[in-house]
């Protein structure tokens, strides 16, 4: 077992894990943060997106050993003091959520984009979501939700 320290949703965190375990496994099975989902384990579906040092990444492809000293944000980090993040609000109101399994990963991809670009074009939104699969929505309302989130964040 190895000891790994990193910033998890704004809190300095230390965990015991085999450094070769994936970040996804550690989040779900060690940290009990099950908001990050597993849809493929091959980096193709985006259900396990997390924000690592400002970039949206698939947690299933990251070894926990590489987390030392880094800054990680998961879906659980967006919901503060009982208040939904504007992106979450936008996803709900736009009808961007159906079964909800891809939703945390979608919201994380959207957040990584909106943290970087406050008023993204449709091309930028689509590019940011283009590694996230959704079998329910056809992406139409998800794209609309990101547009709405940008507006809400600007207010």
């Amino acid at each position, binding site marked *: 077992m190895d000891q790994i320290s990193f910033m998890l949703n704004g809190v300095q965190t230390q965990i015991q894990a085999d450094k070769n375990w994936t970040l996804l496994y550690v989040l779900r099975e060690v940290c009990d943060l099950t*908001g990050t*989902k597993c*849809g493929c384990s091959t980096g193709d579906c985006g259900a396990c997106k997390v924000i690592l040092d400002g970039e949206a990444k698939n947690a299933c492809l990251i070894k926990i050993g590489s987390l030392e000293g880094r800054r990680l944000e998961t879906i659980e980090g967006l919901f503060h003091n009982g208040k939904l993040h504007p992106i979450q609000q936008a996803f709900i109101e736009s*009808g961007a959520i*159906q*079964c*909800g399994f891809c939703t945390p990963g979608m919201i994380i991809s959207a957040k990584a984009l909106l943290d970087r670009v406050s008023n993204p074009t449709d091309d930028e939104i689509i590019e940011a*979501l283009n590694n*996230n699969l959704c079998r329910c929505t056809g*992406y139409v309302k998800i794209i609309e939700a990101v547009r709405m989130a940008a507006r809400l964040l600007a207010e």
Partner: protein
Amino acid sequence: MADQTKQEHPYIGANIPIAQAALKATGQMIFTADMKLPHMLHAKVLFSPRPHARIVKIDTTRAEALPGVHAVITHKNTPNRFYNSCGEVLNEYMTEQLFSPVVRYVGDKVAAVAADTEKIAEAALKLIDVEYEDLPANYDPERALDENAYVIHDNGELERGNLILTVAQSSGDVDSAMAKADRVFSDVYECPAIHHGAMETHVSLAVYDAEGMLTVYTPSQDTFAKRRNLANIFDLPMSKVRVSVPAIGGAFGGKIDLITEPIAAALAIKTCRPVRLVYNRTEDICSTRNRHAMRLYLRTGVMNDGTIVAEDMRAYVNAGAYASGTTSVVWAMCGRLFKVHQCPNVRFVGYPVITNTTIGGPMRGFGSPQLFFAQQRQMNTISKALGIDMLELQRKNLTTQQGADPRNQLPHGNARPIDCLNRAAERIGYDAACAEQQESANDRYRIGVGIGVGAHGNGMYGVKADITGLMLKMNCDGTCVLFTPSNEMGNSSVTLQKQMVAETLGMPLGDIDCVEADTRLTPYQLGDYSSRGTFVSGHGALKIATSMQALLAEVAGRMLGVPADSLRFADRAAIAPDGRRVSLEQIVLYSRDHDQKELMCAESFASQAAVMSYGAHIAKVRVDTETGEVKVLSYAAIHDVGNAINPLSVTGQIEGALQMGLGNALSEDMGVDEKTGAVKNRTLKRYKMLYAGDMPRELTVEVLDSFEPAGPFGAKSIGECSVVPTLSAIGNAIANAIDAEVNNLPITKEKILEAIAKKTENKA
């Protein structure tokens, strides 16, 4: 066609976000794979590497000896009762066992392990020694029908050989109509096996406790049939089996069948500990269920003016290794052939056949996507051959509001496919798009316009007792709890039930708490399938809300001194004609304190109508004739859902269906390796579902202003119908762009280039 009942309904026709959306947005929604119970073990399954083989020896000694392993199960130490995994045909064509001494496809279950961790379970699988004796394998349904083909199941459950059942229906006189037709068109269409692709893979968590109670938590569209199947397999009374659905991360028909449940249950019974079994994506693709691969032979007899006089379809349906719901799918698709055209002479013969491939099962559309791919593709061929525009040809032949099934004269309901088609043509700019098609006919980049029409049902009336049971009880502050056998799998079906209650009782949606899909806690229903969510279960919710309204009105009428039926319900109150009101809270408290009575209802709703839903799609594509690349430039999808109860959800269903349908048309294909029998595309890298960037940027999704008299508040289904016309709209657009026929899906670049080359060759 707008109806007066559309007026002044705050919760009907409103855009309502899906129930529990905040849980889903925050990651707080607990899906089955998120659940952990004290002392829980992890399971892995050993899958067959052989397409067809007898297990002559299986030795689990080394696996059992591995530290951390708690149980290894095989056909030798588990119940051997035959079952059918699909609840719709639960007592028919029982070919499957928990584990069989014969494996029948690459991916069939051989053994399973429960261990302290998933890694240990995985390591233990490698220590199970299996000796196989290979048997002849067959991957094609037509070849498997051959007299000399090896019979894959010999337990007497099937019609003959590998044929599960001949499904045959006809109306009129097809043969003489065909003989009199000016032209007869005859083509063969092929559709591959399709992965449901729900983002949540199949998973179960089973508990077997000291009281002998077996509890299985699982994402399920058919909760009550799963309990019945589990009770049969393990020889338990239903009072000792509970199936509970925590959440469903997408289903699309794939979560009707019993798949991971009995394995997790057997391990839980063996170890007396909770056992969680989560399939990874490759296991989900190869070892669950898929949309059936089919080969369809279609002949259509037409007069020179475009009138279709006879339709004759023969379908070879690959059931895969076990029967599952294949016959049910073939019956459903058979029925659809009689629902769209005015033609009186129609014949369908379907052959669902067992082969050595992954199991075919229920999937969104139940055979309709394949059926309409063939029918609508051939319409396009006919249109070109007769020189009659496709729009005209459709209008001439499509059924109307007076239309009826030619087999039995049962009306289709308020059938409006032509209105859908006309609107789609208007929205996409059909004439201008056709002109573009013509102008680009000799260019490298060619424009193609394609029309597809499709239909689907509304429940199982006429086939099965189509029942939904519900319970409703009032809380003493005037809010309530609805006990529904449905689970909100993403299609807003539970949200819609809440809308019915909110509307009827005059309370906001937030006042309605819901207990969902749990055999211990909720009444029975047929299942969350067959497009019955709105038309049947939604109607059930309206019925129970109406019953509760009557109870409340009776009390409120006495409180206010007015007749019960003079009251209306709004703003959390019963309101008398003179404006005096009592709140729901006051009514419930009065009932408890004065009448000494709890206000609660239980109802069962049975559907009594078999109406159809229709849709028309038009696609405009651009084909690069040098690379074969297809870009869907614009797309219009117009449906008739009667009165849309929740337009936000209805359009969401159609948009989602396009992701699935366009993928099925252009890129998705499980594939079978002819040498090994294995699924070819076993990961999401190879099994290509569409991402956001693959979707058309110009997309029009609309529903008609309509009303179905038999539906709750005039509503009917959308979930399955939405995916049906897509395959043919895309197929026809590509065929029109390249002026060549591609009749086997998916329509890949390679197939397009091949068709272009063949055409050039023929010309030369």
